[in-house]
């Protein structure tokens, strides 16, 4: 379950092929493993190391730098409340206080039923629509406490499962390496590497 599935291995190989050097594919592949398992497992990191010709320590070293990678299970829905300046000015802390009460957890933790993880995050580039929230990286703009409750109700009732995929899934359209792929720069880089 934790190593990439055979379908994902093919996707991984296609992704690797789009970079002049395999290691450049590391962050996209970490996302792929997080999409598969909901978080980044130790086994997955070892598997990525194999696929990329790296050590597990290389993979771990990079992965832990980035906030989106989770190394323990998180909720099915990760709710990120922006508390940065524009949102703070328009009630982000009041919203976070409300969210903590509603979900019964402090920011940075997951509800007992494993459904929600609440986070206090930095600016998510929706500053004119403050306070801004993301659920599994899907935006909610100008969120009032009532809108927050509605959101939690809708998520709990499964009414948003179309719109909000499980944690780990980002884009649902992937770039395809089509027949038009030229590969020129990769070939040039291979020549440089060989020198």
């Amino acid at each position, binding site marked *: 379950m934790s190593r990439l599935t055979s379908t994902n291995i093919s996707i991984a190989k296609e992704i690797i092929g*789009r*970079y*002049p*050097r395999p*290691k*450049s594919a590391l*962050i*996209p592949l*970490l*996302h792929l493993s997080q999409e598969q398992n909901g978080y980044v497992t130790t086994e997955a990191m070892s598997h990525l190391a194999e696929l*990329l010709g790296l050590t597990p320590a290389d993979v771990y*070293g990079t992965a832990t*730098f*980035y906030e*989106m990678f989770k190394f323990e299970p998180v909720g099915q829905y990760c709710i*990120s409340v922006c*508390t*940065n*300046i*524009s949102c*703070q*000015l*328009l009630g982000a*802390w009041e919203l976070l206080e409300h969210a903590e009460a509603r979900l019964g957890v*402090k920011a940075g933790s997951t509800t007992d039923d494993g459904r929600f993880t609440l986070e206090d995050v*930095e*600016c*998510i*580039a*929706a*500053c*004119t*629509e*403050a306070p801004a929230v*993301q659920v*599994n*990286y*899907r*935006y909610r*703009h*100008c969120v009032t406490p009532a809108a927050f409750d509605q959101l939690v109700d809708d998520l709990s009732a499964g009414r948003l499962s*179309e*719109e909000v995929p499980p944690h780990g*899934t*980002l*884009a649902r*359209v*992937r*770039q*395809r390496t*089509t027949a*038009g*792929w*030229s590969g*020129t*720069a*990769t070939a*040039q*880089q291979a020549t*440089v590497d060989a020198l």
Partner: protein
Amino acid sequence: MSDQDEQPEHEQHFRVEGMVPTGDAIITARFDRDDSHTYDGYVSSGGYTALRKALTEMSAATVHNEIKLSEIQGRGGAGFPAGIKWGFLPEGVYPRYVVVNGDESEPGTYKDRMLMERDPHQLIEGTVLTCYAVDAAQAFLYVRGEMALAQERLAQALNEAYERNLVGRNVLGSDFSVDITLTWGAGAYIVGEETALIESLEGERGMPRLKPPFFPAVKGLYLQPTIVNNVETLANVPYIVNEGGQTFHDIGAPTSTGMRMFAVSGHVNRPGVFEVPNGVTTFRMLFEAPEYCGGVRDGRAIKAFIPGGASAPWFYEEHLDFPLDKPTVDKAGSMLGSGAIVVMDERTDVVAACWRIVRFFARESCGKCTPCREGTTWLERVLKRILDGAGRAEDLDTLLSVSENISPGLTFPPRQTTICPLGPSAVAPITSAIERFRDEFEHYIDHGVPKDGIDRHPITATGVPVHA
């Protein structure tokens, strides 16, 4: 999921009609179309004509020359002229790369996400043209990790563009070939800094490299020559190629050419993102022109505003009339940065505002340099204890002396004891706020609460972890 579901409210806030009183929208011109993100929508509104024109009528040098003529300044923060930057590539060194910086995460900034979500083909066309002009065979579109919809739209658009031979081998039958790789981050503000972005693109931790010697144009991705440009910068390229650099130059201010996107957020009646001619005044955007922000909320007075994102020193009422062009804003001691205006009204708790911005930098410091890693954390704690009512008499001196260690002289543009400008950016709000509102800090320290007439926030933040 339908595409519309993703962005409900800002439709109302983003006003397209009449958004530009003194010129025509360039890169946001398609935003009022529902299908602006599709190939059909793009092509039926003039898309990809610049690429056809360039590949049939113009040499690479001619395209580059139009960009030089336009004098377009980078929209990512530093405002460096793109045409000049492209000229820094050493001759005859290959492979060389183009990297599009879509990591938008400077607090207050909201424009690149909009451009990627709503007009992805425009960015792709701008990127292909840039590769043509600088003779690069591969570009990387680096999108911020948290922007799922932007990634989705760009992936879709790239697939469409490849299918139609607008990217790939022998673009439109010419002898020019180029690949674009869509790639994305995973949550780290510092990766917006160009050398950190390159590290990240190499699969590393996103820590900035020391300049010199690592100027990307000379030693960038895989130590090969690399052009890094912001999304908004490159979104303007199709227009410049179609209309000519001179036409672009005639728009805006002579010292800051063209249109520019500004996000105006905070305490205004109608926050929004506007594409306006460079050189417009903040006053006009906030108060005068009815199509913009409609004044400060509840008719209150303005206490301060940030002109260019959280890294920029603050401006005040007396700066409202300043034209927003680079030399004017630079001379007044701040920067246009990433086109992010944050308005704070008279009831704003400036100590809390200052703390929140500093907390951001403390959380986002990559940890490579001691003054930044230790200093920003220290600054955050001192500010937090003032807010918590446990301030000490010596705290203002402590804040200023820690700041001085990160950025000697406390000038702007800052001097730095660090590898990149993130550390000194944390100092800007502190020096701004203490200089102007020292009495509010002192009141907090003496009484444990803000002065009368200030709105407090129920801050429940956890502390910033100490870096290992």
